[in-house]
């Protein structure tokens, strides 16, 4: 026996089966089973549906996350499209929704589905499938917990959508017994989604902290792994707050009558912070890691100055934590129209402004890496996607800065009112306008583009072979173009006083006189038509991505994933 062998043995003991039974035994497969288990050869692992339902293989769980999050993202975009159709005729409405209550229900559903059923699980799926390989671990830390997290999330997501379409939603304008039960189910199912995502985040966090080989410290993990560490850390502090909000709502609903947290729009108000700045940035943190990896890979180099980049991602995560920005930490009436405005506007503005230089610094880091590589990038679909997703995140941050411009620049207004009056007037009332929706769409759709880029980048490991590049390029245009249209039209509409919440209590939701405060109504309606085209384009782009994935899987039947490709 040599020292090399004894060292290998020591490492095996240190990270081996006896000390990490959950890690190793479940997800490994036959190659890691002790050879002495002769009876194992007689046992055949379940295949088909039974195999999928009982799997603890991190790659399978990761693929399941990705497939279902793609489907649910598509559903969210269809819901967004329906809202877009209704908004295309603000003055009269196209009658998609018979009552304002229905529009309110899908308004909430669009946000919960796009972010908590689409974007976040997409990132978790990529992480579950890719990160063990990136840090040279055999599996994730708790494979069975990863499976439980996935199924909890999926059942919650399906129940959430079903409950919302059963006249549920996160609250309602009118409460009756039947509707109350559907609202309760909506709230409970959203709690399940949050619990599943929290457990999934815990698995990734623990994997990154404990499953690295000896000698690999946290600043030596790839950029995507680092960004997931930061993301899961921020989600750890955000998702429990979301769960607490939902539990309070649900308990209040259980009484004979609701008091403060379960009635009217209160359930949505309680969780609205999760779909607003700064928290909306927190859901997109992995975008930074994927962009770093794809960008440097396209330049055929490895990331230079990793530590500053890690610091930037950490700062972005810190500034994107937004659980404090909720209405019930505000001394104002939480059910008031401006409930989502926290009293401490200085803090709110400070967060929005401080994140801008962080994103700028990240752009600088990318530019430095491109310059250092000394060669033109290899143009791939994933490179195009991450470039555009970075642009969308920048647009989101700029929109966020504009949103807080009024309180942030209020001092200047007082100092020199004449020169800046026109500018400040334009900035008035942006808070509460559709600019807020534009910011959310920029950030979330940018994150979605980055997740799709990750899918292209790691396809050889995830699917067994690369995705089709021409079809990939074909999907980039509608995805990116559509995302820009969706975000930009909402943001622009905000400058014409289009409200963030496209409904008012009434029956039907739209009609003459409902939105008199909107300037240039015809122009805003034209913007909304363009936004509708954007939704259709993004949906088409996602369909092309799904087609690409299906085509790749069909072209390599039974192909075992994890065959090379970038780590």
């Amino acid at each position, binding site marked *: 026996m040599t020292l090399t062998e004894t060292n290998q043995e020591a490492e095996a003991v240190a*990270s081996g089966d006896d000390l990490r039974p959950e890690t190793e035994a479940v997800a490994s497969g036959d190659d890691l089973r002790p050879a002495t288990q002769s009876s194992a050869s007689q046992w055949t692992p379940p295949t088909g549906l039974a195999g999928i339902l009982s799997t603890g293989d991190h790659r399978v769980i990761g693929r399941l996350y990705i497939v279902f999050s793609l489907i649910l993202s598509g559903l969210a975009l269809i819901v967004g499209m329906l809202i877009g159709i209704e908004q295309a005729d603000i003055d009269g409405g196209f009658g998609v929704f018979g009552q304002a209550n229905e529009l309110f229900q899908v308004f909430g559903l669009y946000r919960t589905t796009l972010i908590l059923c689409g974007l976040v699980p997409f990132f978790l799926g990529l992480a579950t499938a890719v990160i063990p390989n990136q840090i040279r671990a055999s599996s994730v830390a708790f494979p069975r917990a990863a499976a439980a997290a996935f199924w909890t999330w999926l059942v919650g997501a399906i129940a959430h959508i079903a409950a919302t379409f059963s006249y549920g939603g996160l609250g309602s304008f009118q409460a009756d017994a039947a509707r109350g039960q559907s609202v309760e189910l909506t709230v409970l199912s959203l709690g399940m989604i949050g619990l599943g995502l929290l457990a999934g985040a815990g698995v990734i966090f623990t994997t990154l902290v404990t499953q690295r080989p000896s000698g690999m410290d946290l600043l030596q993990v790839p950029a995507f792994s680092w960004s997931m560490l930061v993301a899961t850390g921020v989600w750890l502090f955000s998702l429990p707050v979301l769960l607490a909000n939902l539990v*309070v709502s649900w308990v209040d609903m259980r*009484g004979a009558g609701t008091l403060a947290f379960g009635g009217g729009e209160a359930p949505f108000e309680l969780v609205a912070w999760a779909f607003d700045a700064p928290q909306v940035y927190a859901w997109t943190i992995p975008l930074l890691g994927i962009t770093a990896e794809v960008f440097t890979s396209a330049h055929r180099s490895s990331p230079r100055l990793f530590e500053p980049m890690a610091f930037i991602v950490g700062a972005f995560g810190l500034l994107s934590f937004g659980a404090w920005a909720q209405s019930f930490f505000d001394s104002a009436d939480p059910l008031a129209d401006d409930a989502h405005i926290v009293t401490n506007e200085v803090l709110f503005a400070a967060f929005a402004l401080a994140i801008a230089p962080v994103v700028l610094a990240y752009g600088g880091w990318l530019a430095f890496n491109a310059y250092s590589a000394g060669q033109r990038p290899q143009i791939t679909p994933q490179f195009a996607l991450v470039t555009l997703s970075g642009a969308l995140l920048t647009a989101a941050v700029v929109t966020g800065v504009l949103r807080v411009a009024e309180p942030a620049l209020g001092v200047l207004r007082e100092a020199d009112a004449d020169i800046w009056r026109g500018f400040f007037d334009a900035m008035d009332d942006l808070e509460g306008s559709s600019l807020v929706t534009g910011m959310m769409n920029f950030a979330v759709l940018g994150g979605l583009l980055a997740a799709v880029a990750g899918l292209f980048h790691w396809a050889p490991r995830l699917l067994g072979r690369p995705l089709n590049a021409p079809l990939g390029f074909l999907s980039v245009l509608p995805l990116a173009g559509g995302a820009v249209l969706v975000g930009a039209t909402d943001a622009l509409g905000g400058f014409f006083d289009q409200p963030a919440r496209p409904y008012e209590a009434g029956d039907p939701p739209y009609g003459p006189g409902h939105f008199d405060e909107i300037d240039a109504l015809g122009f805003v309606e034209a913007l909304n038509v363009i936004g509708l085209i954007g939704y259709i384009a993004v949906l088409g782009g996602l369909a092309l991505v799904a087609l690409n994935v299906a085509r790749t899987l069909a072209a390599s039947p039974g192909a075992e994933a994890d065959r090379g490709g970038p780590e």
Partner: protein
Amino acid sequence: MADVPVGTPLAAPLPRPRTLLVGTVFGTAASLMYFAALLGVYLGERSDALSEGGEWIPSSANIQLAPPTVAAWTMLMSVVTMQWAVYSIARDDRAHAIMATALTTLFGLSVVVTTSFQYTDMGLVADESIAAVLIYTISASHLAMIAIGLVFLLLMAFRALAGQYSSRQTDGFVAASIYWYAVVFVYVVIWTAIFVLK
């Protein structure tokens, strides 16, 4: 690296990944954040109600300080027994470790009983005031946290009975103790914020 013949001193053992410990810390931090949010809402609503000159806890309710104080002391005693269990398993004293875990479990159960008694005694109707909704939400969530802690403790005790933990491998007990200390900490905060301040 060149191969070295047998007989050369072994390399120092590499540190073992403490998966369960890190996972438990993650779960514990999430639990603390959950209660921080609930208590934030509670204190915010209470502050609003009092600043408007209204009453917070309905005058019809009779919330005595004695039962939660007894429960708080019981929880604090369970910290000692929990640490006793960790200390014992670290010294291969499995019998004492199991006995200390059983005592901790008993303390936890007695807090459940005390809280149940208080529910029947305090006359707080759940759907009549915002304070009642929040008090029941927070205290029932804490009961759930205790229940999870008890399951965790029993699991570790049964594993110890089966000979799994020893001075070489104490992670299970240490993880359970971290979670349990969080359970106790949350109760002390609840006792202060809800029952002492009222």
